[in-house]
């Protein structure tokens, strides 16, 4: 089985975000970008499946590189985890919409002979929707998202899909298919820097020019403003040393009839 895992970058969740001078995007120049955590789960689930099957499956990770993140590092890290083939799509426009990402990836993946595409269920920048469903249409294959486990039975993928309230359901999906991974069956593995360095000596990264994949699809709407959440309902802060803050909290709880 050949599995493709597209990966995207997002602003580091710990970063403060600011609007750019036009007020139509975040200020990308001063923002650190990291691998979308859901895509990391997608990579992990692919590697877990390959290891569990032990039938010589191949995994291709395809990174959209807009030049703002350490994408090569992310690809080498994936290789150190057990990914076989590394592809970097370069000159991707910064702030590319999900529709645009789906069309570029659809163009690249459509030329390959993949049995399954695993991608993160969402990203922090999915203003115009999530990638799995869009890729499902682009590739004209089934899509299922919010997946927390993948198995293979003959020519079918057997997936666990999560609904709200902890309800899950099992689906059998014909291949090829696109899966939006919510969480890998096991937490994403850690790889030591030494392992990544070792991989860097032998692993090759193929590059593909985004321009060769056609014009990215437009999201169909324009961003006209960004604003931070109103801080109206702000909490009353309990200050001082940890001990003083804890004592103040105990008083607050007592005032609310909650003795501790």
């Amino acid at each position, binding site marked *: 089985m050949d599995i493709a895992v597209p990966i995207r970058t997002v602003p580091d969740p710990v970063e403060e975000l600011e609007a750019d001078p036009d007020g139509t995007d975040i200020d990308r120049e001063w923002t650190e970008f990291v691998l979308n955590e859901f895509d990391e789960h997608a990579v992990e689930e692919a590697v877990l499946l390959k290891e569990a099957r032990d039938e010589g499956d191949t995994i291709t990770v395809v990174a959209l590189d807009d030049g703002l993140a350490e994408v090569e590092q992310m690809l080498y890290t994936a290789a150190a985890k057990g990914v076989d083939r590394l592809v970097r799509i370069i000159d991707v426009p910064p702030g590319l919409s999900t529709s645009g990402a789906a069309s570029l990836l659809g163009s690249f993946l459509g030329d390959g002979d993949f049995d399954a595409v695993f991608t993160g269920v969402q990203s922090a920048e999915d203003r*115009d929707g999530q990638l799995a469903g869009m890729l499902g249409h682009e590739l004209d294959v089934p899509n299922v998202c919010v997946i927390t486990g993948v198995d293979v039975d003959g020519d079918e993928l057997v997936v666990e899909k999560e*609904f709200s309230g902890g309800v899950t359901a099992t689906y059998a999906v014909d291949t090829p298919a696109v899966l939006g991974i919510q969480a890998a069956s096991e937490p994403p593995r850690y790889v030591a820097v030494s392992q990544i360095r070792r991989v860097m000596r032998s692993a090759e990264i193929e590059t593909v020019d985004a321009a060769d994949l056609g014009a990215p699809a437009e999201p169909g709407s324009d961003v006209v403003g960004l604003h931070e959440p109103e801080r109206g309902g702000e909490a009353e802060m309990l200050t001082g040393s940890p001990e003083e803050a804890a004592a103040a909290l105990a008083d607050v709880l007592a005032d*609310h009839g909650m003795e501790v």
Partner: protein
Amino acid sequence: MSDVYVVTEHQAPESLDGVSYELLNAGRGVADDLGVDLVAVVVGGDTDGYLDELGVADRVVGVTDASLDEFNPVAYASAVESVVSQASPRLLLTSVTSIGMDVAPRVARSTDLPLVSYVTDVSVDGGDVVATSQLYGGKMFVDSALGGDPAILAVAKGAYDADGGRESGTPEVEEVGVDAADAGIRFVERHEPEAGDVDITRVDRLLAIGRGIGEEDNIPMAEETADALGAALASSRPLTDNKWLPKSRQVGKSGKTVQPDLYVAAGISGAPEHIEGMKNSGLIVAINTDEEAPIFDYADYGIAGDLFEVLPALTEQAE
């Protein structure tokens, strides 16, 4: 016909999910602003059981087929595509749920309609629609202008009140046919959540911990504080993904919705997925090193501090 259509959802037989009424509430306001009708779309193997509380809508469109008995991403997308092609909605509203996230992006690409997701507010000005999305883990709201053209809006769960969209009554129902092609996906079985050691929806006090706890070895420290506070320990998603706590302890979108008298959130930044599950708690206390963390917007009291210092201090205080 260029009306506002709302795609309802259901998991349990005989009742629509609460999120459907949230959507109807959102849709009613937008339809009134645009001066058009509100139409509820009900998709299923047999839709009769879902029609009792759709009084807020002007009409109902039923898409009924045996292939739609259980949720199926591709079959449902085909059903919604049929509605779009036959009715040409002015706006189609879906939810950002496990169901909506499968359907809306696929339909958007196949019908070539713009999609705006994670919508928390919709404003209409002279027929032009602007949808506001909550992105970046709740840290930024982004306004998307859609002009006067048809579009799909995927509305965030919890953004609108369900009570405002729930009204007894069944408007006129019209059936729309669907081409039940092979979806390539087969429903196998449903799994109800496993009963946990503690039912966090039924306890009076919760101490919830998040990514800030750092590693599994630090959980006993939080358990001590929970014990001292007379609270049960709960968590945000990353901890149950890492299997540090059982799934039954997870609060939020894909976990439990809780409403304890006291909710202490430690090391939880307050992503919308988590807020959804705890915002109606009684007294909310947030402990986080990042003073700008969104969780403080939902808390009554906050401590801008390191949970590794504050929780032990709290344990000592309580003992």
